[in-house]
């Protein structure tokens, strides 16, 4: 379960990046953030992962054990240790460019768990054989077991994205964040990645940013639409063409359009 409360971010120049964002993501959900570029999707993700500072807000998440983690506390202060402890439990699936291209595929999966192993061991010894076989299992799950010893830089875009997902799986998180995981892929590969993520969401909720409404409607359980840093829609994924138009074409600036969207989401 993830709870985002009143997340706001304003730049010193006065520009509002995020405006009082609040939502929940519950167990078993696969939630998509939609919105035009610059609407605040990535910034919301980065804020949840504690990778950017915010002006106000709180982010809390917990797993089945009930233990709560926060990346942003209401007081605005999170100690480095608490932040690291929380981050360990968030599996961020970045776009593929965030893998270390010069390391073998298996290493790129294993370094997802660096937050859980002692720094001294990570420097002097590295990972254990047990961890390596667990990483192999994660690779197997995304269909990349045969690539374990290949250099990551030699993989194609779709393959890299699978490895990124394997890393997040291996990390054993309570929550997945996926920042445009299929944006750089061709339709067939994008479809395959969505098919991989769907069963993952049943284990731990996924919050993802997407630019493909068609795919989102097919695979996701809920849509949250952002426009200029505010939530303008939070509801079922079956959006009409008119609603999509309003999300993407800026007509949401009209207050009545937002009301229509809200009404549609509630019904």
């Amino acid at each position: 379960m993830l709870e985002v409360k009143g997340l706001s971010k304003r730049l010193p120049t006065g520009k509002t990046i995020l405006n009082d964002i609040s939502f929940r993501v519950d167990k078993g959900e696969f939630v998509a953030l939609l919105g035009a570029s610059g609407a605040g999707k990535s910034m919301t993700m980065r804020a949840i992962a504690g990778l950017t500072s915010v002006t106000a807000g709180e982010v809390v998440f917990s797993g089945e054990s009930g233990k709560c983690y926060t990346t942003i506390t209401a007081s605005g202060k999170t100690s480095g240790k608490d932040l690291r402890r929380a981050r360990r439990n968030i599996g961020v699936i970045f776009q593929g460019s965030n893998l270390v291209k010069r390391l073998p595929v298996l290493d790129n999966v294993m370094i997802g768990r660096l937050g859980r192993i002692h720094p001294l061991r990570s420097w002097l010894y590295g990972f254990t054989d047990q961890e390596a076989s667990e990483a192999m299992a994660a690779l197997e799950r995304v269909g990349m077991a045969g690539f374990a010893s290949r250099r990551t830089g030699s993989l194609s875009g779709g393959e890299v994205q699978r490895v990124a997902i394997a890393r997040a799986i291996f990390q054993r998180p309570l929550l997945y964040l996926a920042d445009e995981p299929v944006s750089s892929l061709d339709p067939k590969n994008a479809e395959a990645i969505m098919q991989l993520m769907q069963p993952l969401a049943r284990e731990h909720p996924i919050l993802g940013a997407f630019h493909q409404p068609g795919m989102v409607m097919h695979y996701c359980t809920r849509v949250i639409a952002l426009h200029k840093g505010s939530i303008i829609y939070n509801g079922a994924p079956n959006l009409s063409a008119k609603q999509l138009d309003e999300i993407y074409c800026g007509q949401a600036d009209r207050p009545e359009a937002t009301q229509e969207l809200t009404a549609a989401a509630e019904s």
Partner: protein
Amino acid sequence: MSASLAVPSNVLPSVRFRRRMALLVVCCASVAAFLIYLKVDPIEFFRDFHFVSDLIKQMMPPDLRLLWVKHGLWTSLLQTVAMAFFGTLIGSIIAVILALFAAGNTSPSWALRLGVRTLLAVERSTPNIVVLLVLLIAVGIGPFAATLSLCIGTVGMFGKLFADAIEQVDPLPGEALIAAGASRLQVIRYATLPQVAPSVVANVFYAFDVNLRLAVALGIFGGGGIGFELHLAQSVLRYKDMLACVILILVLINVMERIADALRRRLFLQEV
């Protein structure tokens, strides 16, 4: 005025030609001025050339018997290689560590970064010979002083280079690890260092190349090794021995270059 379009004066061929000629005249005049100021007489070179040819005649033929009569020569040769090797190895290790403190994206504080950058700049601007002369007084004549001097030179030369390479690393893989709860040190170990490894390895080979030549030169000034043998032969006017040493040095440098090339090729082939 003709009807044709006027060519802009800065690209007009005749103007450009005049500009080139003016530049040539300035260059020639400054060379002449320097020659007069430094009292260099080009004719002297031809008048006194017989000194050089006499010396070369005295050097011929090189006394290659030395190679099997004087066993000390081989130990000296090995000493020179060892000086270059350890100077490069230890220097590079220190350079990488200092580079991590000098690079903006890995340094723990800007004050430390400024301090290390200044230290590297000082080391870089001090000639090896000057460092050696100081060290000769401190640790005495011999290969140890030369190795230390090479070490310091390597740190100065490559510390900044490595720091710049670290600063150019793609930050996104490191950020991904931060997002998974990794510490800064873990990011350096698993995201930063793997990315700079090829540039560091290539530069270490280059450093060895430079240091081997320097090791010979430093030997002449009391650093031991084959350079010192060369200096000895010259000081007792045994020019045939000297030429033998020079030949040995040329062969050594070429052989080492081949070995380094082969190693490098193997290393980079494996990485693919």
